[in-house]
């Protein structure tokens, strides 16, 4: 792979992640301007539901874009022979180089897996899952910003 191709792949991955990061930042700012909503408010207020859906959607998209695009592009750009590595080895290498924290990444995976459960009748569990995903979304934005700054340090 030529240097130009590596640069282009990294730029494309960062651009894609940044789109989700910007939308997530906007939705999270709106969320932070509110008092933490009760479980009842989250169940009944359609505006709040739309906001949490937006956060959860972008949280999922940012994690996908980071995992499927940015992780391989960053490793390629760093000259790491990552093509045949499983995801865990890719994450471990980036953690070793200071680009991300694998524990946090795996926690976001669990938060996401938990969102797939519907928890019928369990209002408190649904509420906890939504609050955990909002917290995880904020942490993921910070992690992406850190990773991007390390890949493209300001002149």
């Amino acid at each position, binding site marked *: 792979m030529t240097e130009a191709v590596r640069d282009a792949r990294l730029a494309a991955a960062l651009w894609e992640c940044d789109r989700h990061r910007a939308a997530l930042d906007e939705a999270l700012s709106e969320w932070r301007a509110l008092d933490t909503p009760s479980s009842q408010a989250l169940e009944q207020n359609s505006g709040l539901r739309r906001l949490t859906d937006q956060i959860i959607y972008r949280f999922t998209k940012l994690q996908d874009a980071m995992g499927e695009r940015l992780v391989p592009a960053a490793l390629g750009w760093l000259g790491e022979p990552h093509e045949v590595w499983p995801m865990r080895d890719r994450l471990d290498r980036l953690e070793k180089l200071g680009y991300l924290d694998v524990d946090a990444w*795996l*926690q976001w995976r*669990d938060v996401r897996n*938990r969102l797939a459960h519907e928890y019928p009748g369990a209002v408190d*569990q649904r509420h*906890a*899952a939504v609050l*955990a995903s909002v917290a995880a979304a904020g942490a993921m934005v910070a992690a992406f910003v850190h990773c991007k700054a390390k890949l493209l340090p300001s002149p």
Partner: protein
Amino acid sequence: MRLTKAEVLAIEAAAKAVLPRGARVLLFGSRTDDARRGGDIDLLVEPPTPVDALLAADLSTRLAARLYRLIGERRIDIVVAAASEGEDRLIVREARRHAIELART
């Protein structure tokens, strides 16, 4: 019980790393049945004192993430309920009927 030795050791290590002292982890669901195949790893976590839904979600996530690190990402379903709690959730009542203790912290 259908867990490998490595999986049991990983659950024990993960529990000791992330759960408070005095907690128990039990296996329930299809993995307790030798006659069945596949299925999620269903774990019942009993913290020493009752926890609210937010703390329960946090404990579950930290335990699952540690297990992903030790044995790879699997379908792991974690239910949290203190042993002292009068439990109205069907899943917890069912879990307790056939649970097998895997770890204590």
